């Protein structure tokens, strides 16, 4: 961890040592969460907000999350900007800080986010001093609008939520990383540590992984694998990936005229 001091990830006023964010959904048992956090090194964890079901005696996920970890509530379930704003305000009222992952999804078939509503919600919540992390399709114009709206980062998807299909949107992610001055956190779709590593090599600021860890045979071991992969990818990015080939060519078909 010595090099972290040279490579801090500052987000929402907090300095993070790990660039892996993890989710809390889909675990066989929430009792795994403390070990997932410990093994992955992650310091940011997402949670969702739901109506209490008085009939069922559900476990309280908050009991398993250490107080030192940054909570990142999402607005899942919101179909409009208004609903996302309402959920964000409720989450903040719970006293768990002012970070919010905006997730506005009106498409139940592909679960793709609604960029327009996301921008509207971001504008409102940024004005209310939330640290707004919007989940988006990797669309440059939406990302630019989010910069103007006051987002703290953008969270483009690598593939549809929960699909474990990897960086299907790689070309678009590259564009966001190149053009957007905010941290780009790849969210959704990452299925393997190698894919998280590749996203980091490309210059992503962080990765958010939930399903790939929760659905592994051994979630705790997979959490460590993701933590290591994200750190390795970041180091590779900072080190500068070397040339793949030297482009050596004996003849000079295009520039030979300069030598004659």
């Amino acid at each position: 961890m010595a090099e972290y001091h040279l490579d801090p990830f500052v987000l929402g006023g907090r300095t993070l040592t790990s660039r892996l964010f993890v989710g809390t959904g889909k675990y066989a048992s929430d009792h795994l969460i403390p070990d997932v956090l410990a093994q992955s090194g992650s310091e940011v964890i997402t949670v969702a907000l739901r109506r209490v079901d008085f009939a069922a005696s559900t476990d309280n996920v908050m009991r398993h999350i250490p107080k030192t970890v940054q909570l990142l509530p999402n607005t899942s379930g919101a179909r409009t900007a208004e609903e996302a704003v309402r959920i964000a305000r409720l989450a903040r009222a719970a006293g768990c800080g002012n970070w919010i992952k905006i997730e506005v999804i009106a498409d139940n078939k592909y679960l793709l986010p609604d960029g327009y509503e996301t921008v509207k919600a971001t504008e409102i919540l940024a004005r209310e001093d939330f640290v707004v992390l919007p989940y988006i399709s990797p669309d440059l114009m939406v990302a630019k609008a989010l910069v103007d709206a006051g987002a703290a980062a953008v969270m483009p998807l690598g593939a549809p939520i929960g699909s474990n299909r990897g960086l299907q949107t790689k070309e678009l992610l590259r564009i966001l990383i190149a053009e957007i001055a905010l941290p780009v956190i790849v969210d959704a779709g990452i299925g393997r540590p190698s894919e998280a590593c590749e996203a980091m090599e490309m210059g992503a600021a962080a990765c958010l992984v939930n399903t790939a860890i929760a659905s592994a045979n051994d979630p705790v071991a997979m959490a460590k694998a993701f933590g290591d992969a994200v750190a390795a990818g970041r180091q590779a990015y900072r080190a500068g990936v070397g040339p793949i080939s030297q482009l050596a060519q004996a003849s000079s078909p295009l520039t030979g005229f300069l030598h004659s």
Partner: protein
Amino acid sequence: MSFYDQLHAYREFDVAAYCADVTPNQVARALQKDQLSPLDFLALLAPAAEPFLEAMAQKAHQLTKQHFGRTILLYTPLYLSNYCSNRCVYCSFAAHNRLQRKQLRLDEVEREAALIAASGLKHILLLTGDAPEIASLDYLADAIAIIKKYFTCIGVELYALDEAGYRRLIAAGVDQMTLYQETYDEARYDQLHLWGPKKDFRFRLDAPEAACRAGMRNVNIGALLGLAEWQRDAFFTALHGLYLQERYPSAEISFSLPRIRPHKGAFAPACLVTDKQMVQLMTALRLWMPRAGITISTRETAQFRNHIVPLGVTKMSAGVSTSVGGHGEPGDGEGQFEIADPRDVSTMAAAITGLGYQPVFKDWQVFEP
């Protein structure tokens, strides 16, 4: 915010010293990237990049084919006026030079336009000296109204204007503006521009951005290579282009690479950019902004222009006269610079076809309901 702030941020940066220290490894690394950083771009201009010229050319060729296809857009300049109130030490139109001054009357504009249009060209670049009292916006609007009958894309290369000035030109029918900063070296600029409105470095520097704000479709910038240290001017031209492209994504930003040629007057350039360096710069610019247009004028020889067709250039002039009224009365009046490629439009088009490229005359027409 202005590009001047970026330029200013580099005031302590020694471009020549940086270039001298670039290693082959840095060049190889830059060549590997899809997106160059400013220092990657500079590495490609360094002496260390010369052995990589073929690799740069191959990559520039691929990118140009990818974004533009095998095409070269043809245009020609039309000099409307050579009145000038500046004294720029390198220019033969400078106010103190004894030269027959002329501004085309509107009937002459029509005659010249008709003569040029007969060649099939649809892109035209209108030029004047820096004499806003004579070659005024009113005069230009009248001239453009005539030009519009013959050409579908009208560019201007005039004195620097403010946003309102560019709006006026756009309303008159202008699609494209070209304005060379000449040199981005502010101290050198001051030495070269002895007097006249052009002496205002900052106003000129901000003019392309004013054109972007006004909604100009195509904004073409460049430095007159040879006025100052060429790598430095190339570096800031590239940064200026990116600055504009990032802030005005709906504008097409393009570059011209004019290299100082012999002309009347005894100006000694600060450096002479070699053919190799021209190729280095053109291919590096292609890698820097793969979608940017690159214009090469008839300052370059026919032979050189033939060779560089696959290397990144997208636009070339043909059938050129750099004197006022030169199409109707060849030999009447002195040109701004000597042309090195005297080919007419049909010869030029045939040469481009012979190289496996398509000469394009028209790629644009405004829809006017």
